[in-house]
């Protein structure tokens, strides 16, 4: 009996696409268009670019699916194609840069201000979220991509490593350092906003 499309695994669908089944391709688009769009949007912060990237990514799926030898790795491969396309866009727009060498950032950034007891309506205010979005965008590219893929898109460390062509420990290290920088930037913001000190008294 033929399985319903939505019950089929990605790997089965990919095998069917390779055999020329257009309906399998439609199911893959249904499953992944939002994921690809979100990742592209968060990396570029440009909705028009994200749509264009999404289209290019799926066109690449059609033209290059034959090069994917292990169908089980389809989603990882798709994320790699998406990040490469987003990097391509950022390079073209000259927004891609390795501002700070990752190794130069202190692993043990201690929080300068305890903002953990602030009420939820403060922590989750639109203004706090905007500060965080801007802080993420200001991270060195190597950390920014990993933080977006892990904490915003919810990908696994292994998927990120595979998609970015790096080791899992390298992903974890960039993620940890990126989070420490974000935490410090948030501490600075909350301190300035909710206390009267200038920051030199701790």
């Amino acid at each position: 009996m033929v399985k319903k499309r939505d019950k089929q695994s990605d790997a089965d669908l990919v095998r069917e696409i390779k055999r020329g089944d257009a309906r399998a391709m439609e199911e893959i688009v249904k499953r992944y268009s939002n994921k690809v769009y979100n990742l592209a949007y968060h990396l570029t912060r440009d909705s028009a670019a994200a749509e264009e990237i999404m289209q290019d990514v799926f066109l690449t799926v059609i033209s290059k699916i034959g090069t994917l030898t292990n169908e089980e790795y389809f989603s990882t491969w798709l994320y790699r194609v998406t990040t490469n396309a987003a990097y391509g866009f950022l390079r073209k727009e000259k927004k891609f840069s390795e501002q700070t060498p990752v190794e130069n950032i202190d692993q043990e950034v201690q929080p300068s201000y305890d903002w953990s007891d602030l009420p939820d309506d403060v922590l989750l205010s639109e203004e706090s979220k905007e500060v965080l979005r801007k802080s993420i965008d200001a991270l060195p590219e190597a950390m920014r991509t990993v933080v977006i893929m892990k904490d915003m898109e919810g990908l696994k460390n292994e998927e990120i490593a595979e998609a970015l062509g790096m080791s899992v420990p390298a992903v974890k290290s960039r993620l940890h350092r990126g989070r420490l920088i974000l935490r410090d930037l948030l501490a600075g913001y909350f301190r300035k906003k909710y206390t009267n000190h200038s920051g030199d008294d701790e």
Partner: protein
Amino acid sequence: MNCKICSTLFQEFLEKSLCEELIAEMDDHMQACRKCRTSLRTYKLTIMLSQQADPPCCVRPETVDRLKKILLQRFFAKEDVKIKV
């Protein structure tokens, strides 16, 4: 366990990928160290805020429909150059 090691292990601690001995050491350390307790709390909150900072957006349905049409055209155009398995 000292503060530096404790801080380095936050990620694994939250992902529950540490062995029991290290978890116990971290728990002991954090019970005695307010700085590390605060540090872990703000680390967790930073992750939570990142998760909520930009809610997932949806592609416009008409964009997906247009994409499907383009893909189907391209897909059938490729049929004569059938993808090698």
